[in-house]
């Protein structure tokens, strides 16, 4: 666990103590509240990730070689999923970011179903957009 960013370590600890769907849902909503809000002009069509059943926006910028993403959604549980995703990737250098196994990360949180191909919630589309931004 030592190789995880601090926020990711916190997420892992919290979610590993939440075995049931209700606890996981509550946690996701709490984590979603922690997302830094996007400005009105950042909630733009350009930043919108298509392929999601709710509206999702993703912006990313590189500072001193490290990637920092911010994201938002009009759905609360999606905000939670975005929060635990960003917890894992924010602050990483491009090379480390490319190494992150997202499926494994969501599996460790007990959220692997959210990445299954039939899910139209758009987490796969968010990952795709992240690759495009960092590629």
């Amino acid at each position, binding site marked *: 666990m030592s190789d995880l960013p601090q926020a990711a370590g916190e997420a892992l600890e919290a979610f590993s103590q939440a075995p049931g*769907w*209700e606890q*996981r*849902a*509550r946690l996701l*909503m709490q984590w979603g509240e922690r997302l830094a809000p996007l400005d009105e002009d950042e909630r733009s069509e350009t930043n919108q990730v298509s392929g999601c*059943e*709710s*509206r999702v926006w993703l912006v990313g910028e590189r500072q001193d070689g490290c990637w920092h993403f911010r994201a938002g959604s*009009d*759905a*609360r*549980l*999606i905000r939670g999923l975005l929060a635990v995703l960003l917890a894992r990737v924010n602050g990483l250098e491009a090379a480390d970011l490319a190494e992150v196994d997202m499926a494994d990360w969501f599996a460790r949180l007990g959220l692997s*179903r959210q990445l299954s191909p039939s899910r*139209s*919630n758009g987490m796969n589309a968010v990952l795709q957009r992240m690759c495009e931004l960092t590629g």
Partner: protein
Amino acid sequence: MALFSPWRADFPALAVLEAQGQTYLDSAATAQKPQALIDALSGYYTCGAANVHRAQHQPAERATRAYEDSRIKVAKWLNAASPTEIVFTRGATEALNLLAYGLEHLIGAGDEIVISALEHHANLLPWQQLAKRRDARLQILPIDAAGRIDLAAATELIGPRTRLLAVSQLSNVLGGWQPLDDLLHLAKTQGALTIVDGAQGVVHGRHDMTTLGCDFYVLSSHKLYGPDGVGVLYGRGESLLQVRHWQFGGEMVRIADYQHAEFHAAPLGFEAGTPPISGVIGLGATLDYLAGLDVAAVERHEQALHDQLLAGLVARNGVRLLGSPQVALASFVVEGVHHSDLGHLLTEQGIAVRSGNHCAMPLMKHLGLDGATRVSLGLYNDSADLERFFSAIDQALELLR
């Protein structure tokens, strides 16, 4: 009052899903399959597959007979005048595309194709693209608050330039029967051809092509408890004569030379290549099964279940129904709750419902929504399924509020 489906045991998947903790309330997307269909598929593959309408050998003869028997069964199911009015396609969507290409020659610049505001993408996009190809106009019939096509507006919009009218029989989002008799009459008066999308409607009750009076009727096997990969295009004899060939290949051709070919008439002329043989045979077996049921009892059960669904939904604080659903399904939104959040939490509790735009993005936009939750029923559902759904939605809303 508890409602039990006497047909539930005929569908083995229901018990399996229940054992997996899944409550299936998404039959408008695709229905579960009766044992009779599973046996027919297994029987066909076990006893020797063969291509149809080609070879003389005995397996081919058997397959061809079974395939053509299915055509007769579909014709009977719809009360078509003849089995030659039944064309098998790979789905309802393909049947609508067949028409959009096969009738293209009838559409000129400035002509009008009329659809409604509530159409599924499958009965919108083929016409939209046809209109673009021919520089024609796509007219959209508005709907009223109950989710029914507005007849007063239709009287205005269906006019002398109308060449085609393509409308759903039963909305996949709003669950309302459309006023087909009046609409078809309006179109016929203007000399237009009429196409009815029966993908949802055909699943509920029996529909008689002789009395319905449309030129074409399209259905999907997999929503009618049959196999997927099969659709049906019903075309009235004289109307089918106006459809031009669209896909070319094996067995739809009568005489072929390198530079020239002549094609079969309907139905074979519209079934290019190897058709979905097992699926068509399976659909025949499904119709045999359905024909053996007491239609009135099925309708009573479905209606009673639907009444319970509506009563339970409207009893919940903040729930708003889309339109006034009459049968089969209900779509709804909950005030202050995103449909994606509700869908997420229902999924967590093993409730299989649909959340999203239901392949009707323009309709959602028209309703001012970016999505909704849809519960849809099959004849195998019973009130215990609804009870599980209601308790799950209560739990979900408690968490979300």
